[in-house]
């Protein structure tokens, strides 16, 4: 109750502040007063995006200092952030890595209403992910999408035709098998494809591409054909099994970067990693390309159609405990981070911003080491991106359950049907009834 009152008070003060600041556009109330806001980030030494955003914003708002607060990478980020928010020691602006935990933050009253900061950002579907009852609680600053990375040299070695944008999953499976045979014949022990241990490598595509697939329905039949193809590839030896990948702690960066696999389904964030690793020597220098993710059926293939893929936005939200004098500056920062200027700055370090404009594509493809073919540009710039995690109270529970299903199916298991019906029963009795 006490918390509810304090949240209401801070929301109300934020609102009055916004109304008062209406005349001053996105500038702080006193445009020249020095303000310091804090921003959460992770692995600051190897993740330059936070500093890029902070520097870019300070350049246009010289009175604002953006101080970075380092958090743990990976899943520990959310654990630490939730703890700090609950303790009241979290930074003013913090990142939501994906949509899985957005519900936790928003329903827990840990996000300020930032609807006014989203005006002028257009109406991308990404923005809608962060809206609850018509109000925006965060803005996206990154929007990665899943694509197919492929090694042109290994395709040539195996004498297999490289992807041309027309692939369905059957074409992909077929190519992986032919690569496996071809590479073996050429004396290479690289595998045709590598499917990383993430559940999203199967489930993300199935959910985004299958007509009428709905995670929250608790009906997971849409996963079946996708798992059958993965099992098929594992059985054929065309990709390392999940067991091998897990017991040997295989990394997708080494699998693709060190030419252990000819194809890799991964998010566009890998572009920046691959470029860095080519520089540092952690990855070989070889001809590579990006192709659209394989499609559910022929209706979305070909460069005249728009391929369907998935990816969660990475968003920024404001801690409601921020002091009143800083709210305007924090909102201006959000507006900058989601806008076109930040987009170009992020593309300059290989990061895919929230809105992929022509300028962004041009900047990214101007980086040294990025492939120059038309298909790569097409795959990077044109697609329909569906969220991996539809925002709901049940999302985290369902995804955790499906993660267990993922390893159960891809290990020896009792068959796809048995595991899926078990998952459906668990969803009904353990998550959706809560």
């Amino acid at each position: 109750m006490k918390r509810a009152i304090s949240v209401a008070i801070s929301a109300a003060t934020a609102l009055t502040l916004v109304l008062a600041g209406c005349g001053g556009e996105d500038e702080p109330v006193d445009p020249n007063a020095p303000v310091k806001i804090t921003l959460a980030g992770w692995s600051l030494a190897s993740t330059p995006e936070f500093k890029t955003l902070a520097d870019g914003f300070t350049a246009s708002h010289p009175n604002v200092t953006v101080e970075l607060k380092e958090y743990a990478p990976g899943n520990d980020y959310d654990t630490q952030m939730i703890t700090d928010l609950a303790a009241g020691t979290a930074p003013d602006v913090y990142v939501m890595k994906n949509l899985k935990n957005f519900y936790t933050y928003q329903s827990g009253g840990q996000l300020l209403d930032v609807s006014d900061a989203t005006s002028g950002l257009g109406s991308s579907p990404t923005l809608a992910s962060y809206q609850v009852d018509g109000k925006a609680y965060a803005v996206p600053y990154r929007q990665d999408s899943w694509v197919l990375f492929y090694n042109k040299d290994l395709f040539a070695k195996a004498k297999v035709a490289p992807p041309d944008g027309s692939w369905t999953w059957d074409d992909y499976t077929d190519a992986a098998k032919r690569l496996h045979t071809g590479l073996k014949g050429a004396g290479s022990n690289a595998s045709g494809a590598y499917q990383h241990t993430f559940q999203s490598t199967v489930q993300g595509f199935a959910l985004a591409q299958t007509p009428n697939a709905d995670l929250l329905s608790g009906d997971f039949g849409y996963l079946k054909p996708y798992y059958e193809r993965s099992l098929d590839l594992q059985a054929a030896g065309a990709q390392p099994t999940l067991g091998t990948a897990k017991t040997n702690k295989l990394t997708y960066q080494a699998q693709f970067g060190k030419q252990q696999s000819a194809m890799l389904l991964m998010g566009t964030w890998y572009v920046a990693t691959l470029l860095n690793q080519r520089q540092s020597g952690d990855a070989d220098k070889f001809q590579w390309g990006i192709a659209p993710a394989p499609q559910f059926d022929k209706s979305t293939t070909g460069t005249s159609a728009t391929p369907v893929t998935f990816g969660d936005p990475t968003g920024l939200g404001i801690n409601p405990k921020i002091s009143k004098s800083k709210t305007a500056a924090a909102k201006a920062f959000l507006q900058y981070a989601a806008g076109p200027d930040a987009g170009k700055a992020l593309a300059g370090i290989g990061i895919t911003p929230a809105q992929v404009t022509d300028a962004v594509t041009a900047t990214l493809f101007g980086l040294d080491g990025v492939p120059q073919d038309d298909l790569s540009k097409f795959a990077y710039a044109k697609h329909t991106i569906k969220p991996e995690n539809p925002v709901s109270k049940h999302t985290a529970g369902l995804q955790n359950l499906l993660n267990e299903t993922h390893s159960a199916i891809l290990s020896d298991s009792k068959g796809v049907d048995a595991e899926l019906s078990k998952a459906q029963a668990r969803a009904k009795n353990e998550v959706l009834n809560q």
Partner: protein
Amino acid sequence: MATLPRTRPRNRRLVSRNTVAGWSFILPNFVGFAVLTLLPVVVLFYVAFTNWNVFGVAEWTGTANFRRMWGDASFWTALRNTVYYTVFHIPLTLAASLGLALLLNRKLRGVRFFRTVAFFPYITSIVAIAIVWNQLFSPEYGPINALLGAVGVDNPPGWTASSTWSMPAVIIVGTWRYMGYYMLLFLAGLQTIPAQLYEAAETDGATPWQRFVHVTLPGLRHTTFFVTVLLTIESFKVFDLILVMTGGGPGQSTLVLSQYIYQKGFEENQFGYASAVSVVLFAICFSITIIQFMVNKRRNS
């Protein structure tokens, strides 16, 4: 009569001085224990009856969490897996550590070296253990299956990559890790058995097996009881080893209670429900220990 009033205050003063001294010795430890363990445990019992989700208020929900647990198939899976781990881990570790202790209790050349070697797994980082054992267990490339193949096993198990074999794999590693520690306790116990008893038994013509059964085992009774209690609690709360080795998988094949608590609490932010499961785990450990104490007491008398 005249002396009593004088001695009493002195006694009382002595007692109170001793009390203060005693408390001041345990105080640093106790403060840490009270703040970091006792208080959270007390709060846990309250939270178990609420729907606390980290943010916002904890509403009192009575026994709702426990009723939910009753119908929660994953909870029962976790409990079953925990019992599976326990019933194999306790006897295996007990036998292995006792065997090691007997073996290394002799006057052998280099016995100290072998004792250190046996203790090594216990002080090795659990993450390193998990990585190395996972590689050893790797179904296609691991040396364990290569060895099994070499001795003629046609269809070697998938170990941590298979739902059937992941629990045996974890039990093997758990036993390997902890046997050195309990071996040390058994070694200490063996030192307390008077050598005369063995000499007497030998004079009476007892075989080595008879000496083991009639001298060593009774002499180790207190140690064995202590080790069993420790092992039981350790097995029921097994967490880190499984988390880093299999993460509970494949599927739910190695999901144990403490990991289920972690999942519900720290991954899904259902701290109320997670606390309720913790209370159940506590109750299980507590009642089994009580039973062990009772059995031990009856055997003593």
